[in-house]
């Protein structure tokens, strides 16, 4: 993708150090050549500007109205959302330093029917609305959607696995998300240049015209259309997005506009931002040095950018809340981490991003993710840990682990926990399979334990008095192989159709042509599987069966080790469960030759998964929620926090490269007696956990009493934020059931 003579003119400005980025699209090179790492402390930070404070007041007022109306402020029923389909919208124009809304008005949601029209109809119907006549005619008579495509190709077997809860949350009636456009490119190069490069790419995609080549040519052509459309969108706001930026304000504005194009076009479950803070800092630092701006303005840009990100909304139907509770958008921004050359990626703007949690108060969005390394500057480590303790709004991931194993030091976090190299790689989101239910197939002759439907062939019915470990294990392996097969079939159909009917042209336009692809499979119920296998092996487990021969309960005699206590006897089952299922998935060919990865992550679906799963051999009754992500089951990790963390750390990231989510909740006092101790102890915990090879940690520092009070008096806690599996939510926007599940989790307390 070499571009001749791409020299950017920047009159009156300090010249940036030149490099590969001047002759090809290479944001990473620009960062490496120009980054100013920051080693100081947080004392330079300033509060919100007057303009920011005024704007945030409007946002708070409007979000309160949104809550009062049951979660939806307003919806446009006339316009199909797209990159340039809405004219400009403002919160309060004269106070906006960074402009741009998804629609023409704050918090107004838009229809994005290409994922599935029925979903849009349902979402509107729940608000007492319906799409305009024109749109209705269009989507009922003429236009085919992703959802229509998927269901015309699904076979009976996939539908069965889906409806009985073996596969749940599949992106077959909503957009898959997970793709991170390299939004920085618009700022650094301007759209004209990006179009030029894509046109050159297109010209180089030549025959023979196989399926793959034809498809790619069509995709790149779509990307070029999207880029042109972005220029139009910019024109609505009088912004010249066609050219590269000249100032720090423009750098923030252009980057946001690129992201805005993505969330106007797509309503993917997770629409991550990437890692923009390091990039933006280079422009901010230059303008600060030249005296063009002061710290007040620098913070104002970031505060207002973040405020806009907090106001991103998608139109969802109520059922969506079961899997992804609290109206999340996953605007995930990765902050910190190290460069491969040993320098830190922490800049002053990393501090500024975190500081928004004070200037604007705690918030689940953007989903701020600190890429942690023991080598990060000491002052930054202290600061981000302090923010975690004060706000419970951020999560941490192991930068050394991901960077070393996956290769790039320029990556973002897709959705919750997943590594994605920026501009070079994408992901196919795969939701997850229910591994606990898969285990029950092994005990029920391959039948669904609830309905008795035959799901998997080749598993002999087991009529034994006491469950035999070796037999169960052998059957479990057969079940995993079969479930993996059906799962893979479903994924291939979904992503084929998504590309065909709801292609992410805006995001893909900001990614290299023909990037690497990971398919992101997932599992839920891991700790249930580990504990169940442990019970079968170390205690006596007697299945209680109903008249159909299906297990309805289990009688357990004797003790057995439980996952979450740093006990190898049971932790090995968690480790192997991940490894074995991943190995089954790896054997299967994927659409577009995507490379399989897997996650242990549940979002809030651990509640609904539990509901759909019968009693399990570990003693968990029918319907009880699973632990989130890779967490040990609630209350079973009885040897303290470190033992619990060590168990999860034994799951090998190599077997689960899409991520292993662990949510750590601790009572403030148990973290230490003073603020200084709490900061030191949490920093030591992160370093210790990641030194064991662990990948991810959500941190909540909260008292249960606060949560109970928020349930009773939500109006007193409008911004109370809590980390769940891989993301954060506004606690008061969870359903009562989900709130109770969060409260029932293990809150570590020391004696």
């Amino acid at each position: 993708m070499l571009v001749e003579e791409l020299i950017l003119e920047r009159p009156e400005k300090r010249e940036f150090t030149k490099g590969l980025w001047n002759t090809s699209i290479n944001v990473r090179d620009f960062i490496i050549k120009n980054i100013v790492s920051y080693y100081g402390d947080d004392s330079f930070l300033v509060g919100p500007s007057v303009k920011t404070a005024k704007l945030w007041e409007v946002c708070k007022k409007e979000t309160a109205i949104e809550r009062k109306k049951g979660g939806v402020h307003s919806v446009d029923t006339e316009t199909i959302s797209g990159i340039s389909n809405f004219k400009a919208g403002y919160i309060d124009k004269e106070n906006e330093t960074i402009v741009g809304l998804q629609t023409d008005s704050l918090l107004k949601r838009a229809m994005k029917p290409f994922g599935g029209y029925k979903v849009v109809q349902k979402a509107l119907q729940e608000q007492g609305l319906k799409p305009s006549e024109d749109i209705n005619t269009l989507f009922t008579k003429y236009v085919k959607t992703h959802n229509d495509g998927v269901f015309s190709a699904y076979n009976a077997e996939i539908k069965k696995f889906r409806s009985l809860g073996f596969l749940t949350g599949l992106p077959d009636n909503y957009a898959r998300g997970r793709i991170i456009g390299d939004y920085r490119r618009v700022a650094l190069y301007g759209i004209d240049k990006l179009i030029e490069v894509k046109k050159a790419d297109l010209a180089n995609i030549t025959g023979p015209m196989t399926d793959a080549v034809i498809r790619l040519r069509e995709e790149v052509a779509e990307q070029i259309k999207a880029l042109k459309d972005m220029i139009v969108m910019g024109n609505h706001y009088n912004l010249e997005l066609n050219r590269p930026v000249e100032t720090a304000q423009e750098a923030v504005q252009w980057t946001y506009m690129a992201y805005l194009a993505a969330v106007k076009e797509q309503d993917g479950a997770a629409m991550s931002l990437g890692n923009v803070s390091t990039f933006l800092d280079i422009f901010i630092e230059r303008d600060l040095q030249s005296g063009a701006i002061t710290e007040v303005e620098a913070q104002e840009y970031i505060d207002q950018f973040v405020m806009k990100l907090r106001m991103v909304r998608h139109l969802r139907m109520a059922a969506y809340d079961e899997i992804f509770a609290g109206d999340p958008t996953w605007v995930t921004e990765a902050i910190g981490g190290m460069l491969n050359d040993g320098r830190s990626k922490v800049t002053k703007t990393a501090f500024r991003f975190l500081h928004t949690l004070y200037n604007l108060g705690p918030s689940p969005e953007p989903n701020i993710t600190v890429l942690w390394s023991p080598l990060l500057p000491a002052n930054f480590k202290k600061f981000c840990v302090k923010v975690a303790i004060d706000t419970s709004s951020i999560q941490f991931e192991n930068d050394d682990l991901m960077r070393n194993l996956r290769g790039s030091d320029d990556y973002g976090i897709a959705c919750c926990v997943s590594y994605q190299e920026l501009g070079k790689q994408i992901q196919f989101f795969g939701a997850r399979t229910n591994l606990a239910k898969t285990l029950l197939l092994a005990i029920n002759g391959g039948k669904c334990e609830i309905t008795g439907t035959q799901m998997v062939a080749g598993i002999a019915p087991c009529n034994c008095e006491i469950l035999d470990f070796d037999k169960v294990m052998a059957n479990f392996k057969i079940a995993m192989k079969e479930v993996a097969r059906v799962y893979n079939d479903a994924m291939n159909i979904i992503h084929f159709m998504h590309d065909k009917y709801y292609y992410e042209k805006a995001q893909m336009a900001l990614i290299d042509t023909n990037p690497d692809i990971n398919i992101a499979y997932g599992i839920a119920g891991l700790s249930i599987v580990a504990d169940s296998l442990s019970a079968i092996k170390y205690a006596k487990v007697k299945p209680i069966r109903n008249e159909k021969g299906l297990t309805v309960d289990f009688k357990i005699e004797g003790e057995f080790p439980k996952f979450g206590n740093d006990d190898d006897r049971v932790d090995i089952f968690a480790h192997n469960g991940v490894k074995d299922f991943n190995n089954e998935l790896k054997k299967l060919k994927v659409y577009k030759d995507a490379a399989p990865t897997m996650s242990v992550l549940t979002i809030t679906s651990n509640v609904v998964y539990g509901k759909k799963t019968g009693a399990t051999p570990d003693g968990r009754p029918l319907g009880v929620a699973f632990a989130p992500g890779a967490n040990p089951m609630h209350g079973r990790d009885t040897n303290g926090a470190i033992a619990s963390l060590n168990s999860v750390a034994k799951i090998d990231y190599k077997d689960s490269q899409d991520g292993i989510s662990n949510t750590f909740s601790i009572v403030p006092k148990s973290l230490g007696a003073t603020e200084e101790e709490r900061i030191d102890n949490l920093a030591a915990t992160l370093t210790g956990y990641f030194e064991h090879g662990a990948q991810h940690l959500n941190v909540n520092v909260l008292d249960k009493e606060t949560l109970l009070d928020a349930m009773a008096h939500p109006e007193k806690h409008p911004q109370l934020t809590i980390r769940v599996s891989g993301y954060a939510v506004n606690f008061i926007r969870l359903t009562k059931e989900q709130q109770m599940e969060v409260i029932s989790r293990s809150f570590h307390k020391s004696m």
Partner: protein
Amino acid sequence: MHSIESFGTHDGPGIRMVIFLQGCKLKCLYCHNPDTIDTHGGKEIHIEELVQRAIKMKSYFGEKGGVTVSGGEPVLQAQNLIPFFKRLKEEGIHTNLDTNGRVLNHPIMELLDKYTDLVMLDIKHMTEDGFQKITGQKNKETTFNFAKHRENSGKKMWLRYVLIPEITNTPELLHQLGNYFKEYKTIAQIELQPYHKLGIHKWEALGWEYELENARENTQEELEEASKILSNYFKKVKIN
């Protein structure tokens, strides 16, 4: 052994693996681990197993943390703690002993002088009468002799003192405490443990009568006042 806490943050510096040993010769009125008092309970565990567990937690200890042995009264098992602490020192792990200092014999001196990086010594009361009322045992002087020994060894020590309004938290007693220890050079800090009733359910579970039923918890002002008095005498005063 009674139990292990893998994330101790109130029993010594940093994050600590805290091992609660079973058995204590005292029966303090406010004991919040009364289930560790009986010298006949508990379970045996191999020293090397404990060492291995500590090694698995070592990455969390950072620069400050390590292993704390608490109880019960750990020095009752000094003979076993010597090889345990010795192994921990070989592994580069910080050792801390949380004790009431009721006994001081040769094995204990060896444990203290050679292998214990930090001693947290619990001062129950400054008067013999008060000491007897709280602990049910005679001779408060043994604890002070223990402190003297530690001071003479030149190795680091923290004091711990449970604050109960009227019983241990009076200005006279606090000044007495401060005056007694003000010349000590090895005391890095004194930790004040505000009395609380969280342990009562454990007493009830054991079928024992909780005699301090009428004692009350400190007010914030009382805690601050105590802290102020003691800061005249000690380098650092911490309310736990």
